[in-house]
């Protein structure tokens, strides 16, 4: 635990130092990065110890604030969330050093770095807090710090809009959580989680719904996701990596904690979670397919992955409620494993997108292309990340989903509604996987492959080592944690026991070991096969130098970059099919004459929920407020009339 506190301390130093050095941006940045890296290095030790030994560590310190106490608890579940947090923030800091170096002088770097370290510290606090006040403190600091980072490029209208939506969502969520904790802590001597008494019946349901709302606004599953696709693209890429990789997981962490507290679960909770997960993973994938901006694609894919995790939780809860504990444990384990894996590959992907932004200055897919020639390493890493995000076998994305699949298959053969849950979960995973594959081949293909579509893309420059190395490490981790899945089962089951109860963890570890060993073996075998095939190919070529020419365009000898299949055209068959959901806005040219002049075609994916649910609601509310605004009309006589009328009313009512 001392080491854990030390890493806290380092992070706080990392937040304070840049502000002290604000006159010398680069020095500030250097100090912040050093602190962040040191903090993650130091912090990983105790966290990994807890994770692998399964022995929780705790620390408590009295606090003069009423009902509050400065008490931390680091159990395997917290550790499981803290490991990717520390890994990712450490790497992201290094990456950010390269990413932001260009902004020195133009932007308040010191503030950005202070906020970054504060964000890390607060997330660490959220994962380890054992007292509601402390938790809320961490939660709100997290929101504030990330808000500042979202507004890093506040000159852009889009960023300000994102900032507002993000802040509003965060504030609302925090208030819901306040309600949640007060409900749980009502009658408790203090606000320590250990003192909470488990409510039952209506109170339990209320607590669950409050948690779902409050944490859901951070986790960002549909329909509470509106801030996510706005905020993630707005923030600097290393921050988006952290936000998308870890910060949204704080919401899931909260939901899991509350679930762990509110046992036994009614079945319909599971169905609710399952439904939300289903909508989110399908909707997220579809929206991702329709986006035109690289980071928005990734943001929506985050929604999809949150949906997958939620789906697994829902399956688990339904199963547990129906008494099918083994497959419940598989589903829970799958959820947690996917939390870990998603952090890795989504971090990698956002860094790749950052490399694109850094190299070309734009994330518009239609403006990119051919970058794999100019930044081969980044391209390779990004494609690796995409493969992981599509859950393709040798990589880590597959492992977590496979656990959920196992649960779903087990469910298939069990009686009653569990089977239905299993079918739905598996089906959603399969469908979402296919759509995600389309989305990621589209993104990677349009951005990195083919010919550059614009001058910017043609003049792109490769990211420096500070940016490349973290991406390489993350890609490596994606591969390794994919191959070493069986080794992860031990800590995983410890985490599951910590979160959901001892039995589940034990069962998960037991059930999943066999298939996981096979899969790892098969994955290795696959890698071997690929190597073999490549070697054979070389042998077939036998040293003959392949000729090179222009791309075969069916006889057309002068293809230009603009004739390539673009992002919109790639997605069009699917997006048209799902138009009722996506509500794409499009302008299609009308060709009238025999020799048509220049015609233009454009589609724009809109944020359906934001535009057609939240905005109208907000407008309605403001309209209501305006309707009442005449009350403050400025006439003194009537003001005094209010007083008289109220007084008389009170007298008549109360006397």
């Amino acid at each position: 635990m001392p080491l854990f506190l030390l890493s806290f301390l380092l992070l706080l130093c990392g937040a304070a130092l840049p502000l002290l050095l604000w006159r010398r941006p680069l020095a500030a940045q250097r100090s912040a990065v050093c602190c962040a890296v040191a903090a993650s290095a130091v912090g990983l030790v105790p966290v990994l110890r807890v994770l692998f030994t399964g022995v929780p560590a705790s620390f408590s310190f009295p606090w003069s604030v009423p009902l509050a106490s400065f008490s931390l608890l680091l159990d395997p579940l917290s550790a499981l969330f803290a490991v990717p947090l520390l890994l990712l923030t450490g790497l992201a800091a290094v990456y950010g050093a390269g990413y932001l170096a260009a902004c020195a002088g133009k932007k308040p770097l010191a503030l950005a770095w202070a906020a970054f370290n504060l964000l890390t510290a607060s997330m660490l606090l959220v994962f380890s807090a054992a007292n509601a006040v402390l938790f809320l403190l961490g939660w709100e600091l997290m929101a504030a710090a990330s808000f500042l980072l979202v507004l890093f490029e506040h000159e852009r209208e889009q960023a300000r809009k994102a900032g507002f939506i993000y802040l509003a969502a965060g504030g609302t969520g925090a208030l819901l959580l306040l309600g949640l904790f007060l409900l749980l802590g009502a009658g408790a001597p203090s606000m320590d989680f250990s003192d909470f008494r488990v409510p039952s019946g209506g109170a339990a349901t209320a607590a669950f719904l409050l948690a779902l709302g409050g944490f859901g606004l951070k986790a960002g599953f549909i329909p509470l996701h509106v801030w996510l696709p706005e905020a993630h693209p707005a923030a600097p890429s290393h921050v988006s990596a952290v936000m998308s990789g870890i910060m949204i997981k704080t919401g899931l962490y909260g939901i899991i904690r509350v679930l762990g507290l509110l046992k036994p679960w009614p079945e319909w909770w599971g169905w609710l979670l399952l439904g939300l997960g289903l909508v989110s993973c399908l909707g997220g994938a579809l929206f991702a397919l329709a986006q035109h901006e690289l980071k928005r694609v990734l943001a929506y894919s985050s929604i999809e992955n949150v949906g997958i995790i939620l789906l697994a939780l829902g399956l688990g809860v339904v199963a547990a409620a129906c008494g099918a504990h083994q497959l419940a444990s598989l589903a829970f384990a799958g959820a947690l494993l996917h939390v870990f894996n998603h952090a890795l590959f989504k971090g990698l992907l956002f860094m790749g997108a950052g490399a694109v932004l850094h190299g070309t200055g734009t994330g518009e897919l239609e403006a990119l292309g051919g970058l794999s020639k100019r930044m081969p390493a980044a391209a390779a890493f990004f494609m690796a990340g995409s493969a992981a995000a599509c859950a393709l076998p040798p990589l880590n994305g597959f492992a977590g989903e496979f656990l959920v699949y196992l649960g779903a298959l087990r469910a298939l053969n069990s009686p009653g509604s569990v089977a239905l849950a299993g079918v739905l979960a598996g089906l959603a995973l399969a469908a979402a996987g296919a759509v995600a594959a389309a989305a990621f081949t589209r993104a990677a293909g349009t951005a990195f492959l083919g010919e550059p579509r614009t001058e910017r893309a043609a003049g792109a420059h490769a990211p420096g080592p500070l940016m490349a190395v973290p991406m390489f490490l993350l890609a490596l981790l994606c591969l390794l944690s994919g191959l070493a899945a069986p080794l992860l089962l031990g800590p995983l089951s410890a985490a599951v026991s910590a979160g959901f109860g001892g039995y589940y963890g034990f069962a998960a570890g037991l059930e999943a070991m066999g298939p996981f060993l096979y899969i790892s073996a098969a994955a290795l075998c696959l890698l071997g096969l690929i190597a073999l095939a490549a070697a054979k190919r070389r042998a077939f070529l036998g040293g003959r130098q392949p000729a090179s020419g222009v791309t075969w365009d069916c006889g057309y000898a002068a293809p230009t970059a603009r004739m390539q299949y673009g992002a919109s055209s790639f997605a069009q068959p699917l997006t048209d099919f799902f138009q009722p959901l996506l509500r794409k806005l499009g302008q299609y040219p009308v060709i009238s004459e025999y020799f048509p002049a220049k015609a233009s075609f454009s589609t724009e994916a809109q944020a359906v929920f934001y535009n057609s649910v939240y905005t109208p609601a907000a407008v309605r509310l403001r309209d209501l407020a305006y309707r009442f605004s005449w009350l403050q009309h400025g006439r003194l006589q009537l003001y005094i009339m209010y007083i008289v009328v109220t007084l008389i009313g009170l007298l008549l009512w109360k006397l």
Partner: protein
Amino acid sequence: MILPLLLLPFCAGLLAFIVREDRLRRGLLVWTSRMHFFFTALQVWGQLSGIHGFTPLQALQGGAAPAWFAFDALGLLFLGITSLLFLGASHYASYYLAAEKRDPGEDAEGLFVFNNAPEAVFTGCLLLFLAAMTAVTASRHMGLLWAAVEATTLLSAPLIYFHRHKRSLEATWKYLLICSVGIALALMGNMFLGAAGLKAGGGLELGGLLAGAGGLDKPLLKAAFLFLFVGYGTKMGLSPFHTWLPDAHSEAPAVVSALLSGALLNCAFLGILRVNSVCAAAGLADFTGGILALFGLFSVVTAALFMLGQRDYKRMLAYSSIEHMGILSLGAGLGGAAMFGALLGALSHSLAKAGLFFTSGNVLAAEKTKRISEVRGLWRRAPRTAALWLAGFFLITGLPPSGVFLSKFLILRETFERGQYWLAGTLLFFLAVLFAGMAKVFISMVFGPREEKEGGKPFTEPGAMLLPALLFFLLVIGLGLYLPAWLGGLLDAAAGGGL
């Protein structure tokens, strides 16, 4: 130590009217505030540590020692708030007045330059205002309390009319008339209180009333409470009596707005708490609690509705004050831990809001307009002010760590403890609305590109005009992180004494 506390600002105020030299007068202002703060600190320390020469707090609770002027825990707390606030305000004011001297402000609407009130009058009224507020916190006699509160109204009217133009005059007039009428009702309430005590022969001395509360005539006491509540509620800015508040706060100079919002409203709140304590002692706690909670909630709702699409950032702050007054009243109505929360809220809201108003003064100086829509990219124009402005937003909306958060937390907890889930739910919803509304304003003001107007010479505010706000904000944050034992004790005693 009570006499110096009362006389010092009084005499200084009278003196200020005749002093010619500007710098001398400003010095007088600053030094009086420092002395006052010093005496206050002495008083607090003396009474808490119960050294002789100071009446220990317990002596007053039972009304054993009837006195017209004495500090019980509640009075002590509000005295502390007032004095601390005035300390900051006076320092801000000395620079503010100097700045105003250099270039008197211009009207935001019709851009004409207006002349300010003579500085002597301003300073004098400021000091007398402090004296009156001190009297409010000190007086243990309902009649005197009334007189003192009315005095604060009359003395602050010229302060609001410092910038002499139509709109400030309108604001002053409304303030003057609405508050006077309200206070007149409070006087009526005092009459009823006296009538209620006729049989018991209590008079209006608080100690006596508390002691003989059992013998008070219930229906008359109820009537007294209603009149006093409406009366002081008008002054406190509870909806629907709040109508004067946005006008006065938006038109007064920043210093005055800060004092109005931070100190004056609290004084009125103190009046309500006094009568509330009497009613509670007489066993009417449920009756008064219900009314306080009802109007508290109503104020929050009103504030939320007017926060949406607000056009003037000082009015926005005023509505936020209404919101907080509502929350305080709610807490007082709930009682118990919520009372503690309410008092903590009074303290932290005063500090945070005063800081915000100071900052708003800087914003006004930098942008020469109070219209939200015309302030963009403050971050570029005046970064330090912008940072404070943003920090103030986070604090006032109750983002931890801050005393505001703690007070909201405690009050909400009490609602849950009592199982009043609908109340809690409504409160939470409108708090969310308020947060969103304010967030939109602050983001649009602080951030965004800056098209430099009027040659765009960089605006640099003197550090002394940032310092008070900065200190207050740090104090509020500190309250959220560490509640010193003595302060906790004082709040606790006040909450107990207030109930």
